[in-house]
């Protein structure tokens, strides 16, 4: 199964090998081996508590930010093991950006400052701040809606706009991989559709990994889908195969809505 996906998609951007993760003494991931293809959208689906969020939080080392957590195994970005001692997680996160479940623009900042926040936090002065803002907001399909109100607070936008602002904030850092942890679960259907269109746009330049418990969404936006169950990777294949002819009975039961 693993080799199959490698054959389908020539270039692997990220790869986890026997990845295990704990919260305290509770092991939530039992050795995940999975390859994320470059410049495709990879969806991670599975019932609540299956470890899908934990898995993508291991891909940019956000899992360890929570106290009393542990990770074992390897995750490769290109050829580099990001869990090696010499890797600074802070630098890694500049390459592997993340969008969260709830839109979380910075409350003290304007729309413009939110987009520049990543750079400013790191103490980088962009060569042309306005161009950076315009580029990131355009890529996030938000520019036309906010170009005249860039100085308004980020929180004055609607939920869907806030989420696209958070995506723009991530894009401004020009990452290589974008991780999305249920980015639409707090949004209405129209805002969700906009974000889904945006994800389709993003894959021309970025590798996208999206966690979702909305199976239709996974079917709509992703090229490959991984099904997680109880901390194990059950099946990983092209999305249309997962949704039409899954090999595993558990996968079939889940995607046909018989449990979860």
């Amino acid at each position, binding site marked *: 199964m693993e080799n199959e996906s490698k054959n389908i998609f020539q270039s692997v951007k990220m790869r986890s090998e026997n990845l295990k993760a704990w919260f305290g003494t509770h092991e939530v991931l039992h050795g995940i081996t999975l390859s994320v293809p470059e410049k495709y959208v990879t969806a991670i689906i599975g019932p609540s508590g299956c470890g899908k969020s934990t898995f993508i939080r291991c891909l940019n080392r956000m899992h360890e930010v929570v106290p009393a957590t542990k990770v074992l195994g390897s995750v490769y970005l290109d050829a580099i093991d990001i869990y090696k001692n010499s890797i600074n997680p802070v630098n890694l*996160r*500049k390459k592997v950006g993340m969008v*969260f479940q709830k839109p979380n623009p*910075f*409350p003290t900042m304007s729309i413009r400052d939110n987009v520049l*926040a990543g750079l400013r*936090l790191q103490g980088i002065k962009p060569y042309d701040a306005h161009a950076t803002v315009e580029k990131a907001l355009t890529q996030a399909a938000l520019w036309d809606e906010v170009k005249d109100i860039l100085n308004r607070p980020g929180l004055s936008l609607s939920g869907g706009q806030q989420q696209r602002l958070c995506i723009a904030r991530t894009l401004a850092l020009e990452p290589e991989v974008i991780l999305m942890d249920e980015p639409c679960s707090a949004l209405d259907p129209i805002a969700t559709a906009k974000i889904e269109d945006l994800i389709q746009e993003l894959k021309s330049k970025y590798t996208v990994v999206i966690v979702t418990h909305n199976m239709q969404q996974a079917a709509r936006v992703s090229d490959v889908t991984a099904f997680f169950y109880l901390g194990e990777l059950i099946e990983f294949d092209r999305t249309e195969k997962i949704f039409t002819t899954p090999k595993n009975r558990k996968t079939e039961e889940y995607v046909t809505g018989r449990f979860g």
Partner: protein
Amino acid sequence: MRHRFLKENTIENAFKAICFLSILLPLVLIVVLIGDAVIDGWSRLSLDFLTGFPSRKPELAGFLPALVGSFYLMLLTSAIAIPLGLGAAIYLEEYAKPGFLTSLIEINISNLAGVPSIIYGLLGLELFVRMSHMGRSLLAGACTLALLLLPMVIMVSRESLRVVPNSLREAGFALGADQWQTIWKIILPMSIPGALTGIILSVARAIGETAPLITIGALTYVAFLPDSIHSAFTAMPIQIFNWISRPQTAFQTNAAAGIVVLLFLMLFFNALAIWLRARLQRKVYW
């Protein structure tokens, strides 16, 4: 049914009345207190009183050294207590790993906030006046008051850090920021307004403190203004205490006038805290 209705209404009204009285009583007491002080001290409340030096003749005695002493004391105390308190709060909230040691520190800080101020006075006398050879100086007074304030500053600062949602810390990390960068540029701008309000209120309380300053030996008769942090000094509450303990009734009038000045300044600081909170929080959109 109607009967039950009536009965509940009676209890409702009684409860409302009790709560109303609970706010009325302290308000009346404060008005009486201020009114009494103003009436007693009215004859001495003048520019001469504010700019004069102490004197053996009550009608010539002024409040200036006490006023200036308290002002310097407040500045120095803030300069010591605020950075230390904020730093400690940031460490405990943002960096410290939960565990036995952290809990021990937390419990001790809460307990320290309840220690009587005279104990801090004794500590200051030994630690600053004697062991550190600061003498009965402004610096020793400020260090002592800073010790007294520290637990309170730490607690209000922690409270204001705790209300910043964790999702914003994660957002900072996910954007490739170090923890200190996230704290400086995201967490602190959001929590400073809240912390500042609490800090100003604690500082305002500290300028009313008398016991620790008497313990470390602040002078009661000072005919000069402090010219350095090593200078001897007096402060408003001490000057008031001194005047009240004089046998001549004319000094009681001075004391009353001093009380009016002290209360006025306290109210001013409280108002400043409220104004600052309103103003700064307008910049934070929750």
